């Protein structure tokens, strides 16, 4: 309505102006950030045998750089293990069913600021398997996120 009264000769340019303006308004409304931070240093690893979920009773799982023992005498089909924010590589050692298997990972950390109120946080991405004693491995999602269901899938006979 606002421009109709000056549209006396040729309205096509003004219609175009209106279209472009509305498009930019829409875009402008979509670029506000929110404080939903999904960053985490926990990598999610699942175990399969063929296409089936593989449940394993672990004696223990160890993470390089930490003395803590994870999943001691625990029977699970997936685990969550932490990455070291000060390093770019890490090794997990899995002891189960009389076997010792290792998984050596590399990753990238990136600093991001969402806003002054949300603050700064560290993103973990570009996750890749450098070395593994497991027969078959797959990186399902190479960015760590609280939303990701699985980052790495390992085949265990």
């Amino acid at each position: 309505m606002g421009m109709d009264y000056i549209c006396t000769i040729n309205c096509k340019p003004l219609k175009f102006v209106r279209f472009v303006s509305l498009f930019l308004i829409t875009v402008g409304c979509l670029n506000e950030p929110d404080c939903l931070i999904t960053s985490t240093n926990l990598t999610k690893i699942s175990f399969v045998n063929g296409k089936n979920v593989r449940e394993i009773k672990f004696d223990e799982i160890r993470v390089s750089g930490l003395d803590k023992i994870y999943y001691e005498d625990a029977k699970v089909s997936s685990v969550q293990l932490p990455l070291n924010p000060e390093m770019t590589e890490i090794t997990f050692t899995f002891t189960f069913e009389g076997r010792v298997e290792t998984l050596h990972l590399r990753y990238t950390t990136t600093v991001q600021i969402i806003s002054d109120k949300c603050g700064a946080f560290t993103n973990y991405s570009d996750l890749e398997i450098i070395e593994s004693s497991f027969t078959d491995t797959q990186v399902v999602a190479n960015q760590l996120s609280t939303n990701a269901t699985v980052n790495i899938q390992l085949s265990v006979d």
Partner: protein
Amino acid sequence: MQQSIFNYLLISLVMTGLFSQIQAQDNPPDSTRGIQKPTGIRLGTDLIILGQTFGKSSRSGWELDADVDLGRYYPTFEYGRWTRDLPITNGNYTNDGRYIRLGADINFLLKDPDKNMFFLGFRYARAIFDEKVIYDYSAVDFGNFQKEATNNGARAGWIELTTGLRVKIWKQFWMGYTARLKFLPIVTNNSGFESYEIPGYGLTYKSSYWGFNYQVFWRIPIRKTD
């Protein structure tokens, strides 16, 4: 929402101006419309950024503006410095950089004897800056850390549509404002730290931005008007 209304008004003004230019090509030639020899150079500065510098804003800096009249067309050059010291929830962010804008304004007040201006224009802008963040964070089982990340020598570019006024106040003293819609920011930064703010533009995550300068100028005549 205010930004959206501003975007709408500015885009409408610029686009209407451009279309009126196209339509004007059908009209008989007018000596005020063509490119002419320059009669003066206007040098100025932005009062808003100076106000922020002397106030308690987290942003400070200065800006030098210059334009020259080629008839109704005014090639413009703007150079500025922008620093930021911003406390964030878990640390502190700093930014120090310089920017340059090149472009032209088109004057729509063609027959004003004082060469007062209502203009529409465009700019291409570049910035180079250093930024740093120091922040506290915790990682599961690895504990709490304080981390420092820097982005030295980061570069950025963007485009602006502008509109505004320039009014002669007294002798060679001029005042005016420039409203600018900034968009298409492209940043080249170091891996490991995603740029947060571009000097002269604003926050990197905003795909469009609007800015406002309230400016004072001193005009240096170099030739008498024909």
